[in-house]
Every structure is written in structure tokens, then in C-alpha cells.
């Protein structure tokens, strides 16, 4: 007996990211086919799908991180706040300031905890005074739920932290420059369950301020954390809808097969 569904709310929220007919090539191999999707602001959007379906590749097109890989080609449009980020003359450095990214394996710099979080602030010359910088670093670490654990040892090496703490440090580092969109590529896949649940709580808090796109291969995580979910397969977007609807009454059979574990 299907329970009544809440109506899908898309029109009320403003669209932050709009992708139109995106095609992506690694050399001759086409990795993404005609992807079109709209991501409203201040929600958590999850990308799910089996390994190799292109969800990480697609995530990386949103802040043009694929530009650093030689031989890649992009067709179509990615509009953030109605500006196509692939238009010639786009300031990619500024784009990456506005669209932050947290990677699957935490990658803190071999510097102190403070210098890690301050790095983005320093290079973007966000603050000039020392006390203002310290204030921003403290705020970022609090936002990432790491402040209490490290406040007494900000000058020690970031590499001395545990895996979960390092990942939260990377999140703090990304949040310090106050991006508008936060992209998270399987942020908890290398972490134990307790650290994972801390990250998930964090995401829940963060979506009040940021638009978050999270790639995850863990469907339960997607169901717990996200408002909307997009299912990818073999480089194509199969279905996108409110999370509740995707996981209880998906419209496409392939989605249902994936959700119920028939493949992937």
C-alpha cells in the first residue's frame, strides 16, 4: 500500500546550477551523454549509481576540475547563477572559489592545521589582518565540527590527525572561503561508521547555508542525507527526483532495479 507522497517542490526554490545537454569526452571515449539537470539552491543533491557510471566525472565538471586532465572535451552548458561556466573567458580560479570541493580521500597539505584552513583565505586575500584571519579559521573549524578537537593544537601538523578528522579539516578548508556550492565526492567512503555519521550530521547542518552536491555509492547514505537524488548509469542521467520518491516509488525500472540491489 503506497503511502501518500509529499508533492515534489522544485519550482519554489531558485535554481543554483542548471546543466543543459552536457557531453563529456576523455579523448575519444564519451563519458557523459546529454546530461540535463537542475539543482535548486540550499538543498542536498545526491548523485548515485554503480561504479564507473560517470557521477564523479559529472561532479568535477561543475567546478571545471576536469580541465587539469589532458585530452578532455566538454560540450553543452553548465550554468551557475545563469552564467555558463564553460563560456570562453570564464575566470576558472574565481569559479573554484565559489564552487568548493571535498575529495574522496582527504588531502590535507603537509602544513599545520591552521595553515591548512587559512590557505584558501590567504591566496584569495580575503582578509588582511591577523585577528580577522584567525576568526575566519575558527569559524570554519566550528562549522566543520572540528574546533573543539583541535583548538589547542592549531600549529601542529595536519597529518597527525585521524582519517575522519583530516576529512573534516578538508571540509573546514573548503568552507573557510565561503563557497556558494559545495561538491563532495564520496566524502565518507574512506571513513569508519562513527566518523561517517559525524560527516552526515555536518552535511545536514551545512545545507542551511550552502548548496551541496554529494556523490555517494552508499544508497542508505543518500537516503539519509539528501533532499533530491539523481541516478546515473553508463554516463546517462536516468532519473532525478525528490529523494523520498526515488527510494520508494521510482518512475524508471532501471532505477528500481538499482535501488533494490538487482545490479551495481
Amino acid at each position, binding site marked *: 500500500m503506497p503511502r501518500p507522497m509529499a508533492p515534489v517542490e522544485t519550482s519554489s526554490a531558485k535554481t543554483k546550477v542548471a546543466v543543459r545537454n552536457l557531453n563529456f569526452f576523455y579523448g575519444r571515449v564519451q563519458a557523459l551523454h546529454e546530461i540535463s539537470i537542475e539543482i535548486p539552491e540550499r538543498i542536498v543533491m545526491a548523485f548515485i549509481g554503480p561504479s564507473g557510471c560517470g557521477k564523479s566525472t559529472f561532479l568535477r565538471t561543475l567546478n571545471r576540475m576536469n580541465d587539469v586532465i*589532458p585530452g578532455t572535451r566538454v560540450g553543452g552548458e553548465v550554468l551557475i547563477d545563469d552564467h555558463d561556466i564553460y563560456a570562453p573567458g570564464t575566470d576558472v580560479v574565481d569559479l573554484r*572559489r565559489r564552487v568548493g570541493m571535498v*575529495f574522496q580521500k582527504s588531502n590535507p*597539505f603537509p602544513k599545520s592545521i591552521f595553515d591548512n584552513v587559512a590557505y584558501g583565505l590567504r591566496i584569495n586575500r580575503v582578509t588582511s589582518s591577523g585577528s580577522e584571519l584567525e576568526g575566519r579559521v575558527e569559524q570554519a573549524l566550528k562549522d566543520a565540527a572540528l574546533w573543539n578537537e583541535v583548538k589547542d593544537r592549531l600549529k601542529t601538523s595536519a597529518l597527525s590527525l585521524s582519517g575522519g578528522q583530516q576529512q573534516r579539516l578538508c571540509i573546514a578548508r573548503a568552507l573557510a572561503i565561503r563557497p556558494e556550492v559545495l561538491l563532495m565526492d564520496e566524502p565518507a567512503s574512506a571513513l569508519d561508521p562513527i566518523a561517517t555519521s559525524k560527516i552526515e550530521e555536518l552535511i545536514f547542518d551545512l545545507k542551511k547555508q550552502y548548496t551541496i552536491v554529494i556523490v555517494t555509492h552508499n544508497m542508505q547514505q543518500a537516503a539519509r542525507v539528501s533532499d533530491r537524488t539523481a541516478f546515473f548509469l553508463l554516463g546517462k542521467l536516468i532519473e532525478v527526483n525528490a529523494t523520498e520518491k526515488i527510494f520508494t516509488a521510482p518512475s524508471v525500472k532501471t532505477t528500481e532495479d538499482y535501488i533494490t540491489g538487482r545490479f551495481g
Partner: protein
Amino acid sequence: MAASFTNIDRIRRANSAFMTTLTGLCTLLAVGALIIILGHIAWQGIGSLNWQFLIDRPRPVGEGGGIGNAIVGSLLLLLISSVFGLPLGICVGIYLSEIGRGRFGDAVRFIVDTLTGIPSIVTGVFVYAIIVVPTKHFSALAGGVALAMIMIPIVARTTEEMLKLVPHSLREGALALGAPQWRVILGVVVPAAAPGIATGAMLAIARVSGETAPLLFTAFGSRFFPESLNQPIASLTVQIYNYAISPFDEWHAQAWAATLVLMTLVLGINIMVRFLTRKKF
């Protein structure tokens, strides 16, 4: 069945013991050769080594004298060559690792590799042609440039290798924060590789401190303490050469002592490199 397994086992163990002994003997041979060389130098040289020897300049046979000016000269030449060679070498290394891609980068890498193999006397003759001949005199500057030209390819390659060891995820992390590429390189990648780059630089200095041939036609040698960079200058290596081929026993003894000093200098640099780059961060 069980008997044949035991046999195979026995053969395998005998093989393993044989190879272990063989590699052990080879190691002893190699290390032993080094120890014999060092020991012989120390034994031969220690007799003539005294404080006066280290601070005095060479004097005619029978009047004693020392290698003070050669020590100062060698250090000065190392300084000049480092000033020219290290920045250039490190920059080439950064280019090869971070920026140069495709055919041009491959061509540069090939040229650098070839340059590491050029005989040092050829470098000396080259610098003779481009600096000594136009300026019409030997000089410390020419000697420093010759040593720098030997240093640059070595430093470039070790710098490149060290930069390549920095994990790509660090570069991506910095790029994702809105850093332009030059900031990523200078602010994250090079500092992360800094201990390795410093090791490479110091090893290049140690290597170059033992060069004799390129100095023969550039710095030439001198009996006096250096006063200007535009004059010929003494160096430990050339001094040892001059003393060793002379017909005087007294100078042979001084050559041995100078060799001991040079070996100590090189060993000292190597040990300092090891000490300074022990794991910290």
C-alpha cells in the same frame, strides 16, 4: 610424495643461503673498497695535517706551506656555482615536472639527461672558449660557471623526481580552493618536496666539489689567497693534482693531506644532508 617435497625444500633453502652469502660478499667487497680508500687516505694524509697546513698558502719546496687558499678557493667556487646553478636547476626541474608537457617537455628532458653525461672536461673547455678567451684571463667566475653548468642538469633531474613524488591529490586540493597554477606550484607542491629538493641540491654540491678537469682551464689555480672574482683562484682539487704530479716528496705528502681534507669536506656535506632531512613533518 613427502620425500620429494622435503628435497625441493632442501634445495630451495640451500639456494637461498647461497644467494644470501653471495650478495653479502659483494656488499662486503663494495663497502670494503670504500673503507680501504678512506683508511689509506687517512693514514697517508694524517701525518702532514696540522693547523699551519690548513691556514697557510703554498710556499716553495722546503718551506712548508699549506692549502689555506685552496680551501677558501674551493668554498668560493662552490658558492659561485651554487648561486648560478641551484636556482636555474631547480627552475628547470619545476618546469619539467609541473608545466612542460608533450613533445617540448620531452625534448627538454632528453637534453637535460644528455647534459648530465657530458664529460666535465668538455664543460671546462666550453667555458674556456666563452668566458676565458674573451676576457683574456682565467677567473674564479669562469670556474664557478663551469661548475654551475655541471650542476644544473643534476639538480634539474633530482628536483623533477622529487616534485613528481608529491601526490596529485595535493595539487587538486589546492586548485579546488581557487589557486592559480603558479600558486599551487610555489605554495603547495614545492614546499612539500622541499626536503627532497634540498637533498638533491646538497648532493649536487658534494659531487661538484670533487671536480678537477673543468677548473683546469677556467679557474686555473693560484698560489695566493683570492682577492677578486676576476682572477685565477686555487681549489683543493687542482692543488692536489699539481702536488701529486710534482717530483717532490714533500709535496706528495701535502697532496695526501689535501686529499684527506677534501674527502672530509665531501663526507661532511653528505652527513649533513642526512641529518638535516630526517623525518619531521
